[in-house]
């Protein structure tokens, strides 16, 4: 594909802070995104993820700190001189122009030789499969088609970085899966450095090479999806990526190694050796790492007894909320046809193993 971009660039964000009036929106963000990487800014609304993306594109107030694209410091460059392609959440197609003119816009602004423009526009439209709709107006297109036009309009100018702000949020469930795949194929084909902004963690996990988790303007953790899931550095990340059981307590050093003494009296032996004692800590473990059995049966690890308070059927598994004393533990049990399920009110035992517990850094 002729359009394949050879100029995929890294994006480096250094000590970036940004404030609207007196409200800090981004606080000292440091990041490096590799050339060709599929990267995601993930966080709840108001976390600053969109602001960060817009800062890369050059929108919003000028931040403190630096943004480098490739070797170039773009922090003070206006948007039109950054060569960063952005696909807006609402697509932002211009209603007064046809599809073709929308797509040609960026090329025209870049003073591309006029003989070349139609060819490149056709190529881009062909790539998103909309060549035959090129004379329509955006209002005559479906949501998915509009999304494709927005994509074509952006990639036709061969940006060094592709930014996508919640690209799938305006689509219905089926279309979403399809579009996701198309975008990924396109990205792979063009080998573009791509940054998504996404609020849905599952979607982020499926798409991204790496994810940066943001909350209240602070970068919480950067890593591959699995890393973030398995080794969250704090409660927020633990909670935001998947479901987690959290327990407050202290790490103590006992005779047989380190152990976690929870505030509710439960004591968990900890695997591994690097657990310095003392101080308030939080223990994290995932629901699928807890075993569940009927009262009286055996389960591995520390055994706690409790009562099923709530049950959700999620297709491949059953999620129980088990009341243990004052606390509620979430426990996942895989589901197969014929396998018995506990009812609300049943007495159960749950088993916890130390090696599956992660102690968060203070």
């Amino acid at each position, binding site marked *: 594909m002729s359009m394949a971009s050879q100029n995929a660039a890294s994006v480096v964000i250094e000590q970036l802070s940004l404030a609207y009036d007196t409200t800090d929106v981004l606080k000292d963000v440091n990041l490096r995104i590799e050339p060709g990487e599929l990267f995601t800014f993930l966080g709840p609304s108001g976390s600053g993820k969109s602001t960060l993306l817009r800062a890369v594109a050059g929108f919003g107030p000028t931040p403190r700190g630096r943004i480098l694209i490739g070797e170039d410091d773009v922090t003070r460059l206006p948007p*039109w001189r950054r060569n960063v392609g952005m696909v807006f959440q609402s697509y932002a197609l211009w209603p007064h122009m046809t599809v073709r003119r929308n797509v040609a816009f960026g090329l025209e602004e870049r003073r591309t030789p006029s003989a070349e423009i139609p060819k490149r526009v056709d190529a881009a439209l062909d790539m998103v499969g909309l060549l035959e709709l090129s004379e329509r107006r955006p209002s005559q297109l479906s949501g998915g088609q509009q999304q494709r036009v927005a994509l074509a309009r952006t990639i036709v100018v061969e940006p060094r970085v592709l930014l996508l702000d919640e690209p799938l949020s305006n689509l219905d469930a089926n279309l979403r899966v399809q579009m996701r795949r198309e975008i990924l194929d396109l990205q792979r084909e063009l080998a573009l450095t791509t940054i998504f902004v996404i609020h849905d963690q599952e979607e982020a996990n499926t798409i991204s090479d790496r994810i940066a988790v943001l909350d209240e303007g602070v970068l919480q953790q950067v890593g591959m999806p699995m890393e973030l899931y398995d080794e969250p550095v704090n409660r927020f990340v633990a909670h935001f990526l998947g479901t987690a059981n959290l327990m407050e307590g202290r790490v103590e050093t006992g005779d047989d190694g380190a152990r976690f003494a929870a505030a509710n009296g439960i004591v968990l032996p900890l695997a591994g050796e690097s657990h310095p004692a003392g101080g308030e800590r939080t223990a994290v473990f995932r629901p699928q790492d807890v075993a569940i059995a009927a009262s009286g049966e055996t389960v591995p690890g520390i055994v706690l007894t409790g009562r099923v308070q709530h049950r959700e059927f999620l297709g491949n598994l059953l999620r129980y909320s088990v009341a243990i004393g004052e606390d509620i533990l979430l426990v996942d049990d895989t589901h197969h046809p014929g396998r018995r399920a506990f009812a609300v009110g049943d007495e159960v035992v749950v088993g916890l193993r130390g090696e599956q517990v992660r102690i968060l850094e203070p």
Partner: protein
Amino acid sequence: MSLEAMARGQWGPAAVGLIVGLFLLAFLVVPVVNVIYVAFQDPNTGALTLINFVDFFRNSLFQESAINSIYVALMAVVLASIFALPLSYFTTRFHFGGAILIQTLGVLPLIMPPFVGAVAMLLLLGENGSVNLLLDEWFGFTIPFMEGLNGVILVESIHYFPFILMNLSASLNSIDRSMEESAQNLGASGVRLFRRIVFPLAMPGYVAGASLVFLKVFDDIGTPLLLNINNMLAPQAYLRIASIGISDPMGYVISVILVIFSLLALWISFLALRGKDYATVQKGGGGLMKRDLRPWEKAGCYGVVIFILLLVLSPHFGLAILSLGTVWSFSVLPDAYTFSHYMRVVSESSEFITNTLLYAGLAAGIDVLFGTAIAYIVLRTNLIGRKWLDYAAMGAVAIPGVVLGIGYLRTFYAFNVPIIDKPLASWWVIIVVALAIRRLPYALRACVAALQQLSVMLEEAAENLGATKGRTIYRVVVPLMSGGIVAGFVTSFATAAVELSTTIMLVSQESDAPLAFGIYEFMQSAAGRGPGAALGIIAVLIVGIATYVSHRIIQRKETQQTPDMAIVAGV
């Protein structure tokens, strides 16, 4: 401007803002201050004082005038609402044949100088006008339509009700059907639906129109004077300023009071609207809800519409008859009919027509240019003082025409324009400037509304693809605002074409005079009444056709763009 703003490529907007600001300063603020200043001078010593205001508030004539002015303005708002409500509601909420025609006809009263309307209304509805002569003959009684303040209220409300009609229609048009459907779903219908959902949602448009009517009536001079009503504030100001020998600063004091009252009305409408600017077009919304009428309903609605149109267009009918009649005196209709008035006007006065097209066209052009610039600066930049630019431009609506005219004469007469070697105050360009300043608020509101509906993302997308701010404005902002810009242009053009209160003070030679001035001149002699009326009809035709055509253009644009505008605005 902050360093940051410069870095962000706001040099362009800042420079434009500065130019617009200087223009407003030179042609609005300075002249008005020049007039207001007199109100605070002791008439004998020239020292600064408030004694003139003490004199004003102690004078029973002025107290009476103030009360009359407020009464007339309020009653005119009430009557104008009665005219505007059915017209706008029927044409926007039902499938109603000829809606565009009705809307256009409904705007016609605005494009006739009110003093011309008053002449025609006197002939039709005056004490010895056609209607009363007939009533007297058939039933032996007459109705004092035009007696005293009644006449002022009737003429003013007919002239200015289109302000309510236009704003209310725009509001009603922007109510999404889901709003009404959900109300119907919850059990509301008919009058209750209108009262509890539709009207509150349309309120911003109504208040905007009503406050404009109040302002205009409150400031109007021509109509009360033509009907020989002196005891109102604006005529008192005019009489005291324009009459030689009466040197006292009372005219200026009244001007200040008029300005204060007008600002107050603006402020009240601003308060009433704050936080109520409902963005009601929903994402994926179904657009407007239009309903079919049952035949008998339709007949009723058409009846009401036709009655109102007949009434509000009666000045036009009167004028048309006058322009074709030979002698019309104490009789139901003229004695005979002739085309000679038109012949005379066309052969003698085509200059008035070309001047009007030139002046109103230039003024409206300046208005939409500045309106777009100010709207952009206010909504899209963070330049320091941008709000003041907006306030100053909007403030022009509160400045009575006489005040501006006198201010110009005072400020610019000593200033000679190089090359043509004429005082600026008597160069025809100053008329264009005055018209532009007077009509800027209309164009500005239209531009601001258009830009507000435009998602910023459409601009960001352009910048992202390499278009500079300037290119973005040229290729994306202006084309998408074009509906609003055209609407602003039409309103400015149509109303500027019939403006008299400022131009009458600024026309320094007949060859520079616009239509309204020409009509006024013709109407000053016995043999000139017919030609004056003919000129009036020509004015109405020109402006009316221009308005209708642009209505059609806007309509076409809207049908093209509405669906995606909804999506854009919904995000």
